[in-house]
């Protein structure tokens, strides 16, 4: 193995630190040139490091379980590159998982001179990590334990001005299975319960403050590259206009018009009150200003204010989770539910979807607590109870899969592999359906955002109702997404940029040249390595399944009506394209070809 510090590197800082919070020991993790080229950084490198360190049966809440925080070679340099990735085994799903967050934390972390760090062990008492140009220190966080993410951030930034803080809230402390890590107040590494893993280690927060320069291989080319990227972002209708003007909630009316806006736990695909919770309405009644992550011209963030509170959001998925999913049309209550989740450190998608599941369980007469569609007044207390695992909240803190199983109606949980499906009804888009089913981290729209071509026409429109060719496109999108998550950039760039441009960015910044095929193979390798880990953890074809509602129950209104998902056909094609056996497991030949 070549030490990461063995030669001059560009883009990468050249240091990954492993720190054990049980005993305070630290070591530098060596990364060979070959591994760096094969996995890049962020998600890819994190998955590789995690797979090498852990058996697939590791308990996510054990002291031995590592949680990995990584930036990528483009972090801090390219537009949108303030992000970081968190990688571990999800306590919610049992799959290998990663969660990505925007804001500023990734940039500031990298400028401390490291590409990231790996945390193992379990501290005896609450701690936080202080990451600076001088290294990593473990600090006492007793005074922070019990505080919400906003207060935690305020206290720590008062002590360390100019720092960026990533922390958990009460939900993470209480190891709610879907608790998030929140950074810069309102940006979330939301999915998969990474916050719960921090909580299990008594790790309250990470404070980062760095001042080091990030070396670039081709400074002149870099200036030209930035000009080109600026034009690409500006000229794309999604990145250059829609997201900026109306935020991600621009999708509310669009998806509703396609009959795919999941309503009352996916019973319907049209929400009659969609207009009242849309991006247009948010702009009209709540928006204070548009906000942006580090070095991001898109500025999809929304600083908003209700009569009582102010904060960030709601974003599209959160509007849906506390809106249509629950039959709620009160935009103020929806927004305040979003604020509260941010403060308590909860994944809004799973929180809303689980409440929706409980509402349907109640409707079916099997859930003993009264929860009615459209009742916005329950949200605040319910969300707090979830974070503190109090009363009914203790049941909901299980997430929808465990909740529905407990009450004998597993079919009412809208999840894949234990992770709740987000705000696109798969019956209206066959590719997105396959994407959900085959996602390595469960019901997620970010592994392959087939909505882009199927609904938004990016980069080309394809027939959303047809299952033909979808296996190939979903595999392609999964692989490109894995690359972007490994560079670590915002996935919105995928609307505006092709694999060639991502290769160009890597080359200009790092000096490392990839052909389009080579770079795509990196994505394929990452996806297969994740799959390999999951296979060892017991996941097979039986887990690449959608809730029966999508396979057998047709929607009865809207432009996606009278349709179900044709999953089996697409799945067979998908496995074949992937080089996996009929059980969805990568073959030896595939692994050998990908050099896994």
């Amino acid at each position, binding site marked *: 193995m070549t030490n990461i510090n063995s030669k001059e590197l560009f883009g990468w800082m050249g240091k990954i630190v492993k720190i054990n919070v049980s005993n305070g020991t630290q070591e530098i993790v060596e990364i060979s040139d070959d591994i760096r080229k094969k996995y890049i950084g962020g998600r890819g490198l994190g998955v590789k490091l995690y797979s090498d360190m852990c058996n697939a049966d590791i308990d996510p809440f054990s002291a031995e379980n590592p949680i990995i925080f990584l930036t990528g070679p483009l972090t801090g340099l390219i537009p949108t590159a303030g992000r970081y990735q968190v990688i571990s085994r999800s306590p919610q799903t049992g799959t290998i998982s990663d969660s990505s967050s925007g804001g500023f934390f990734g940039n500031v972390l990298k400028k401390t001179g490291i590409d990231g760090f790996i945390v193992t062990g379990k501290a005896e008492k609450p701690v936080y990590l202080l990451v600076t140009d001088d290294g990593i220190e473990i600090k006492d966080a007793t005074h922070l334990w019990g505080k919400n993410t906003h207060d935690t951030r305020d206290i720590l930034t008062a002590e360390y001005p100019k720092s960026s803080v990533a922390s958990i809230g009460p939900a993470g402390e209480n190891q709610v299975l879907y608790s998030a890590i929140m950074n810069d107040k309102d940006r979330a590494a939301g999915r998969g319960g990474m916050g719960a893993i921090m909580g299990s280690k008594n790790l309250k927060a990470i404070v980062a403050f760095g001042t080091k320069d990030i070396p670039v291989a081709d400074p002149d080319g870099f200036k030209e590259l930035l*000009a*080109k990227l600026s*034009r*690409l972002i*500006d*000229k*794309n*209708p999604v990145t250059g206009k829609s997201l900026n003007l109306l935020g991600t909630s621009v999708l509310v009316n669009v998806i509703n018009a396609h009959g795919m806006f999941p309503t009352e736990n996916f019973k319907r695909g049209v929400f009659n009150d969609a207009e009242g919770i849309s991006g247009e309405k948010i702009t009209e009644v709540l928006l204070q200003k548009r906000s942006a992550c580090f070095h991001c011209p898109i500025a999809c963030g929304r600083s908003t204010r209700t009569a009582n509170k102010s904060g960030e959001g709601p974003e599209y998925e959160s509007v849906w989770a506390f809106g249509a999913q629950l039959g709620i049309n009160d935009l103020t209550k929806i927004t305040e539910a979003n604020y509260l989740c941010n403060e308590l450190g909860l994944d809004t998608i799973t929180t809303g979807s689980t409440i929706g599941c409980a509402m349907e369980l109640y409707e079916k007469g099997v859930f003993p607590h009264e929860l009615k569609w459209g009742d916005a007044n329950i949200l605040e207390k319910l969300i707090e109870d979830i974070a503190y695992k109090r009363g009914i909240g203790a049941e909901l803190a299980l997430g929808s899969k465990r909740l529905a199983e407990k009450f004998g109606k597993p079919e009412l949980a809208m999840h894949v592999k234990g992770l709740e499906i987000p705000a696109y009804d798969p019956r209206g888009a066959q590719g997105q359906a396959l994407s959900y089913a085959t996602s390595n981290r469960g019901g997620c729209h970010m592994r392959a955002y087939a909505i882009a*071509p199927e609904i938004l*026409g*990016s*980069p*080309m*429109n*394809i*027939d959303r*109702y*047809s299952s*033909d*060719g*979808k*296996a*190939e*496109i979903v*595999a*392609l999108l999964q692989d490109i997404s894995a690359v972007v998550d490994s560079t670590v950039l915002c996935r919105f760039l995928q609307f*505006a*940029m*092709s*694999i*060639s*441009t991502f290769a160009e960015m890597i080359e200009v910044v790092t000096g490392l040249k990839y052909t*389009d*095929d080579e770079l*795509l193979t990196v994505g394929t390798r990452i996806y297969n390595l994740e799959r390999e880990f999951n296979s060892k953890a017991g996941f097979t074809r039986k887990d690449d399944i959608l809730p029966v509602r999508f396979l057998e129950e047709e929607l009865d209104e809207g432009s996606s009506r*009278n*349709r179900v998902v044709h999953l089996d056909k697409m799945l067979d094609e998908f496995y074949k394209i992937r080089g996996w056996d009929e059980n969805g497991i990568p073959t030896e030949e595939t692994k050998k070809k990908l050099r896994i």
Partner: protein
Amino acid sequence: MKEYTRDQLAKMIDHTELKSSSGQGKIKNLCDEAKMFGFISVCVNPYYVKYAYEQLKDSDVLVCSVIGFPLGMSTTEIKAAEARKAVSEGAEEIDMVINVGALRDKNYDFVLEDIRQVVVASAPAHVKVIFETCYLTDEQIVKACQLSVEAGAHYVKTSTGFGAFGAFEDHIKIMRETVGPDIGVKASGGINNLKDALRMIEAGASRIGTSAGVAIVEGVSMLKFAPKAWLEPEIPCHICPVRSANMSKLPKGVYAYYKKKCLDCPHRDKYNKFYE
């Protein structure tokens, strides 16, 4: 379908900015993008020809000016003068709009002369003749092609982008069949992504007019992967002009023509139904 590189496709695209609301900053960006991505030309309103030329004079990007735009209803003398002025300020291509009303009135002598005078006034610049195909029947499109060729035009072109709808493959095919291989065919209006552009080229277009050129050429590398899946044949009714025929925007006769065409279409029984 034939494969295209990013550069090959860029050399078929007139990078276009024609909105009346566009300020000079937009034109600057347009020119920068044309140089950056290698487009054959920028297509601008006459007011911006001089400025665009200044931005592009050290590059191989051409300046294309629209004339009589977007209605085509100014007099022939004004169109010719407008073209002459544009060429004097640096335009190397001229996209003129025909007098659609005169064509529909079968006033062919006037239309022929209208085009001819612009061709003469524009020399040595090449002239593309915009028909606004949305307002024409197939027979009228054929006639417009014949008149354009007779008048010495170098290209025939579908649309302004300001009409009821833009370019459709059916129209491109008719235009290519009528003008033959030696005259250019430009598809324009509503071409928003790579797949749209490729369909037009496959149908016979040799030039694409679009404001989405950057996104189109950026999408080319996606086609290297899963080309068959991306280019699954469209349901014919989804790419038929009839689908865009709007009663409130089309002349009564043209609207009736399209609807009749739909009733007689062989695809109707198979595809023209709501469900898959």
